[in-house]
């Protein structure tokens, strides 16, 4: 709890960063377009023209699909002239520009995954999420930067170069989907999709003052997502409001027969007794205080205490819960994800596509292509994964990590018996400085300590903008029960509507001058 007014001033919420587009959310974007009464083509042209100017200091965009976007906009304009107002029912995201992380396949686009080994590779098909957004009327306008093959927490490990945090250009935007978070914060497009393996959407969302949602594993099709950790990866959206996330999830969620791990059923999928509620009064928030006391920085801890006070004042019930197991989720996650990565990345051999280094024999060509094509962090994780899967060490490391994964699932199930949703800061600290963790992998991995546990057991988790300190944003994370995606998002909407969180405005108290 805070003791004096000077500390209270630490937790003023931020507005949009410099160079941000003037709209607040998807619905306000549509409103803005309607008021300007311009065609979709004119609007897309303006959006594309503004990309380089708004992104000039942050470098979040890696590719722009100018010709394809204009051509798509023209065909939608033609459709409007033929169908009139009927089209709104058919295409709920009509003419909305969308950005995608570079590991989501888009037909004929350079799906390079931030890696030299895929330089020049063009995807021969669309991912399911891309197909669904296209059917809904959205227009893909570009790719956003990412850590190579989604391995990293800082967006510093990309073959395209680093992406910077729009709130402090000397700090990281988080990762691995850092480019998507920056694009959302700057309003480069109202829809921005990333992928979340151990926090790759929620952590950059917290660092960049936007919303990021990781759905239940299997809720969104992974077909067309270049695999990093197949049992953990989940395509996840960024947005500038919780309502926007609901709109996007309604389009991209739901069963896909092309993904064997896809959950049968449509989105939204609210779990049993939780249902839909209109206020915070009946909602029980579980807080693992003992764990948080041990891992949080003072600024984040102070802001979170004020946030809890606000939620309690708004009628929410705060319950202390014990969740000691999640402290140990980090090693399990890094061993499992490295093991899966070493297996998934075996396909990049210079033979079928991507970079090929000339060499005397086939094997030396493969080794040389992989060595030159993969960056240092990817090579490190491949080596770790190869080691933990090797004979004699499988049971000691990988087997134990899998055992722990099962235990943490049981721990979450126990915790959710006492509360509707778990509440904790998304990250233990604010965005760190560029280069601060690059020489110390353990330090970099420890940034994910609060985002990894729900990923490990496939639970839905939403990061919402909570507060800021010294001009740097902080996020708070809501973790729901399995398949309670809709419920978690609706709590996000409630918190936003009642002023407890959001991209703009003040959370707790006015800043003292």
């Amino acid at each position: 709890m805070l003791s004096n007014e000077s500390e209270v001033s630490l937790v003023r919420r931020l507005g949009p960063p410099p160079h941000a587009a003037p709209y607040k959310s998807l619905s306000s974007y549509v409103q803005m377009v309607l008021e300007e009464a311009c065609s979709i083509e004119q609007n897309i042209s303006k959006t594309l023209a503004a990309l380089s100017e708004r992104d000039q200091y942050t470098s979040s965009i890696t590719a722009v699909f100018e010709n394809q976007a204009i051509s798509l906009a023209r065909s939608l304009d033609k459709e409007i002239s033929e169908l009139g107002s009927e089209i709104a029912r058919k295409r709920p995201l009509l003419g909305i520009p969308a950005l995608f992380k570079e590991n989501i396949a888009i037909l004929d686009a350079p799906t390079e995954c931030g890696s030299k080994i895929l330089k020049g590779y063009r995807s021969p098909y669309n991912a399911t999420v891309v197909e669904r957004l296209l059917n809904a009327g959205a227009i893909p306008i570009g790719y956003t930067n990412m850590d190579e093959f989604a391995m990293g927490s800082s967006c510093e490990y990309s073959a395209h170069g680093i992406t910077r945090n729009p709130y402090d250009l000397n700090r990281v935007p988080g990762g691995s989907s850092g480019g998507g978070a920056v694009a959302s914060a700057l309003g480069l497009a109202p829809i921005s999709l990333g992928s979340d393996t151990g926090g790759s959407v929620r952590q950059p969302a917290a660092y960049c003052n936007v919303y990021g949602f990781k759905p239940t594993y299997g809720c969104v099709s992974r077909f067309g997502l270049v695999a990093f950790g197949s049992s953990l990866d989940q395509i996840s959206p960024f947005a500038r409001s919780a309502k926007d996330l609901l709109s996007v999830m309604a389009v991209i969620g739901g069963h896909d027969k092309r993904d064997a791990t896809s959950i049968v059923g449509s989105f939204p999928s609210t779990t049993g007794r939780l249902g839909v509620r209109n206020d915070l009064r009946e909602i029980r928030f579980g807080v693992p205080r003992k764990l948080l006391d041990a891992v949080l920085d003072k600024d984040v801890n102070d802001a979170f205490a004020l946030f809890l006070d606000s939620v309690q004042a708004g009628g929410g019930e705060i319950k202390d819960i014990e969740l000691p197991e999640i402290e140990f989720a980090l090693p399990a996650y890094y061993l499992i994800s490295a093991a899966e990565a070493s297996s998934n990345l075996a396909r990049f051999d210079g033979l079928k596509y991507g970079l090929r280094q000339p060499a005397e024999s086939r094997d030396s060509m493969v080794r040389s292509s992989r060595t030159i094509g993969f960056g240092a962090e990817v090579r490190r994780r491949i080596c770790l994964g190869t080691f933990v899967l090797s004979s004699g060490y499988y049971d000691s490391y990988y087997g134990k990590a899998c055992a722990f994964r099962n235990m943490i699932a049981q721990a979450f199930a126990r915790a959710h018996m006492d509360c509707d949703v778990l509440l904790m800061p998304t990250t233990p600290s604010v965005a760190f400085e560029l280069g601060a963790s690059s020489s110390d992998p353990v330090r970099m991995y420890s940034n994910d300590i609060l985002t990894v546990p729900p990923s490990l057991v496939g639970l839905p988790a939403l990061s919402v903008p909570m507060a800021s300190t010294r001009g740097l944003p902080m996020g708070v994370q809501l973790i729901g029960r399995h398949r309670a995606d809709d419920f978690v998002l609706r709590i996000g909407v409630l918190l936003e509507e009642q002023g407890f969180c959001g991209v703009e405005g003040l959370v707790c108290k006015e800043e003292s001058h």
Partner: protein
Amino acid sequence: MKLFTIEEIEQISALAMLDLSKDEAERIGRDLSNILKAFNFLEKVRQSDSYVGATRQEFVARSSNENEAFARSDIPCENRSHLEDLHRVFPESRGGFLVVPPVIDRDS
């Protein structure tokens, strides 16, 4: 502190089809040692706590499918052309290519 030798990292990188320079092998060896040291509390976890993390023997006992899988007598990648290379790099006298030498405990 547990340390990897250069030879061990070379064997791991050969399995992963990577050519590492001596400097990088040393750095990765150091990084892996640090990572495993930071994660050593996994030793508290018992594999019997979870079916998913059960040992091979436990799997075999519990599942007829796995039993069939592990009972296969054929050698993985028997017909692959690079098997000879693997045997050359990982001679049977040193445990073969499926065995990575144990991590050595040393005082740093």
